[in-house]
């Protein structure tokens, strides 16, 4: 995403996370089902306000890339959080200066 924007401008945010996204429908060569282990939720919080949320399901492939947009309202921080099966949690953030 850009680091600066004009007030009211639409920002395109692209974010990719490394995760195998095991669907839970695959089997090993000996016939055992490989258990589901996926990211369940992604959310974007802009200065404490949730602006975007995704619920992920087993159909999403590995290393999911999410492209979305939001409106630049004020300077601050956008936090990106993922949570999923087996206690998976990850986050990152990006600073934005709005003029």
């Amino acid at each position, binding site marked *: 995403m850009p680091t600066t924007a004009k007030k009211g401008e639409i920002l395109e945010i*692209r974010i*990719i996370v*490394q995760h*195998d*996204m095991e669907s839970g429908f695959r089997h090993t060569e000996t016939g055992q089902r490989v258990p589901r282990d996926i990211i369940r939720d992604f959310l974007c919080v802009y200065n404490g306000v949730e602006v975007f949320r995704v619920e992920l399901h087993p159909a999403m*492939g*590995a*290393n999911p*890339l999410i492209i979305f947009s939001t409106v630049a309202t004020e300077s601050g921080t956008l936090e990106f959080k993922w949570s999923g099966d087996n206690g998976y949690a990850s986050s990152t953030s990006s600073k934005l200066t709005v003029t």
Partner: protein
Amino acid sequence: MSVVVSVVTVSRAASPGAERQSSYALMSADTKAMQDDPLLNPATFAVLDGQALWQESAGKKNRSCATCHGDASTSMKGVAASFPKFNSAKGSLVNLEGQINDCRVTHQEAAPLAFESKPLLSLSTFVATQSKGMPITVERNAANATSLDAGQHLFNQRMGQLNLSCAQCHAERAGQKLAGNPIPQAHPTAYPIYRLEWQAVGSLQRRLRNCLTGVRAEPYALGSKELLELELFLAWRARGMLLETPGVRP
């Protein structure tokens, strides 16, 4: 009476009368865009992991790759484009992954990394990325000549239950369709690749094993002499073509 026998080696072009072409050209616009933008390319994770591993000390000697090789962006420039090589001291062919393991065992006194393991693929992707945009420089020489001939022989040999050779699809029928998909000329210009079908990064040897399974042949083992000979032949056949690593393929 003296008899003179001359032996002529015939080297086949990639495709009779056609220009050599990377399989990049056959991909959809979306897939090309995924490869071209490092921020969209899932193989970037492997490059970043490799960059971190490059700095990590390992083995009894407690050295990292950086200890001997310093900054990879200078020391590794062009290196990946020159593999596989025939290592005369070892008496065998070595590909990039093999060389990384040789360094680990000899100079770091660390255990070799398993073929297709995440750390090995990350390191080879990181090293190969330093040759991005550079031409493949594998040439025939006295040391690799026997292996190169063996690789060429394998490429032209019918194999498996379907009794097909690599050449029949990738030289004679490149550009035609197989199960709806265009057949590439099979130049290893982008390896290691992030293959969408694998949802992961994989090496050329992994792909070659898939091809062999595809013609219903018993695939040669990872690291085997046969796969190395094929890698050498394919690299030689693609000499002069530019490396695109890390590639994305369908």
